[in-house]
């Protein structure tokens, strides 16, 4: 009899499900945050074909606004969270009005360089206002249940904070999708993305739609900043740089200009990073996530959800 000849492979703890699940949770947490920033990049690219390099700084400002509201005004966490999101939305709009609107008709490169300039400006402004040292997130302000373990099985820890991040990410992603698909504003955004001139002819106030897009992107980026600041308990003026680059990579991975693509790209990048650091080499963690991006771009040049543009034959 060969009854017992097939025994399920003894999953050593090293390659066990518990470790895999924990790494997956780690990856989804950071991936959801990348997704929220990436969506901002992709929406702005969608409407004005600009890679807004200052978007990472809006994310940084989100974290700093929230901490300032909590420590200076003594506001509770949730109030500070939404107030800070609103402030980031306003910052996004100002960024557009001050830096990008005057350059609307100039070559794209001018706006791109302005974006890099705004990124440096905002970083240094934050250093002047809040100092260059890393700051802790006020621990006492966080709801107490955040630290508690929600689920634990076989060594897998899932805290309420994880669930809070997942929840906020999912709600915001669904909300964003509804705004884009179901509302008049969303329709206007899609129209502007397709053809600005035609949209204007159809009676859409293009500048207002662009401002609205910046506000949405800013609010989402700000929310991501607050959650990162609170989860990892550290904020500093240059934190937007790495997050911005990663999220940009996520947006490209998903196909820049595509909102669902950016969402998926962020999650894929986060999970690749966590699994790469967990199973391959932790030293090359960032390298692994970028390698994933490069491989996808080589195989699917338009990104996961990108539109494949047909090559138009030039008439000789």
């Amino acid at each position, binding site marked *: 009899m060969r009854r017992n000849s097939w025994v399920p492979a003894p999953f050593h*703890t*090293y390659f066990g499900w518990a*470790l895999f699940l*924990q*790494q997956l949770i*780690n*990856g989804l*947490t*950071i991936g959801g945050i990348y997704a929220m920033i990436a969506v901002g990049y992709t929406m702005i690219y969608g409407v004005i074909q600009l890679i807004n390099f200052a978007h990472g700084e809006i994310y940084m400002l989100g974290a700093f606004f929230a901490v300032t509201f909590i420590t200076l005004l003594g506001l509770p966490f949730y109030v500070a969270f939404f107030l800070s999101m609103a402030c980031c939305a306003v910052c996004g709009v100002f960024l557009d009005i001050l830096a990008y609107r005057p350059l609307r008709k100039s070559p794209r490169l001018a706006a791109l360089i302005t974006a890099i300039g705004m990124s440096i400006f905002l970083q240094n402004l934050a250093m002047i206002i809040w100092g*260059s*040292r*890393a*700051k*802790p997130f006020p*621990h006492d302000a966080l709801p107490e249940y955040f*630290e508690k*373990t929600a689920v*634990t099985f076989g*060594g897998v*820890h899932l*805290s309420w*904070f994880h669930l809070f991040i997942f929840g906020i990410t999912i709600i915001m992603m669904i909300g964003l999708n509804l705004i884009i698909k179901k509302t008049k504003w969303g329709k206007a955004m899609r129209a502007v993305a397709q053809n600005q001139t035609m949209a204007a002819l159809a009676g859409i106030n293009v500048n207002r739609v662009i401002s609205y897009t910046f506000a949405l992107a800013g609010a989402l980026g700000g929310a991501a900043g607050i959650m*990162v600041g609170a989860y*990892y*308990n*550290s904020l*500093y003026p*240059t*934190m937007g740089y*790495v997050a911005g680059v990663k999220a940009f990579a996520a947006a490209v991975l998903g196909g820049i200009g595509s909102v669902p693509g950016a969402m998926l790209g962020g999650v894929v990048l986060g999970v690749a*990073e*966590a*699994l*790469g*650091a*967990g199973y391959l080499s*932790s*030293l090359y*963690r*960032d390298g692994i996530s970028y390698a994933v991006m490069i491989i996808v771009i080589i195989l699917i040049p338009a990104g996961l959800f990108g539109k494949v543009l047909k090559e138009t034959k030039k008439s000789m």
Partner: protein
Amino acid sequence: MKNRKSFLFLGLILAVALVFGVTTGATAGTIRIGVASPFTGDLASYGDNVKAGVNLKLKEINDAGGINGQKVEIVWGDDLCAPKEAGTVGSKFAADKTIVAVIGHLCSSATLAAMPIYVRAGLPTLSPTSTNPTIGDVGKGWFFRNCYTDDFQGKYLASNVVPKLLGKKKVAIFYENNDYAIGLKNSFVAGAKEGGITVTGAEAYVAKTTDFTPQLTKLLVNKPETIFLCGYHPEGALIAGQSRKLGFKGPLFGADGIDNIDYIKIGGKAANNTYCTVPFLAASAGPAGKKFAARFKKAFGRDVDWMSANAYDCMGILAQVIAKTGPDRKKIRDGLAAINSPAKGYKGITGLTYFDKKGNCSKPAFVKMVKNGKFVPAVKAK
């Protein structure tokens, strides 16, 4: 008439000195010493500590009339703890012939980058804090330090702190990918065999990372009893917090890089039950050290840390040497190298300092721990 002439002459000299003073920042008749540390950036609080220690001694020296009647002036160089910036600061110091000696750099990787420049320029360098063992070879006789090296520190952690103080045997190492932390990790691993310690895993991280959960998850699989925070405090504090979030409850420990009040500020409750070795501990110091600690607290409103104490002594050593040799780069080097035996050693607040051929000194290590949100002298873990 004669009086008036000399008065005019004096005025002229003053005017010239003022003009030159504005252009080069130098005033005639002062001894200038360069101090290189990170004064901005993530490790700015380390630089603040060194600045505080140097300033305290500087005031003492200048209030007493300077060195042989010449006032001492400090030129601050911000290296951000980055090798690239350290090279820039080093070149600036080396080119400025009025600078006769350097205190710094703070970070080992910064010192390693700047040292060849100082060797070429013949500028003696005395570091209060760089603990990487290999700097002595790069320094070629121009480098001195009044702190111990990581060779000693890592072995001390492995043979003493972990088995005796913590009473633990299984250690996971989480190290930063830089000269300081890799040197420290290697000496810990070398000492681990002697101390009967098992290293259950070693993972690396890159500075400025905020998410350490993947590596921590991997490290925790082998069920270590304690985690070695082999790096600096900004990341150490985050690792402490995230390890607690992943359910790790054991003690944490690190070396001198962890000793900073920001570790507790950022780490919060998670920072409790962390041990670290330091070259200076006010509670274990002699009467001079205790007096210094009290003065420090009065002047800066915070508890003294080891970096300030070592920087204070660096300034003292240089002042003593310059008083003998005069402000000349080569002569100061010879003067420092002559402090080569306990009998000729400098008695400072951090104990007796004397240098071997590579500029290293042997000094004891002390152990601190975080308890209820405060650094206190370490007690044995239950």
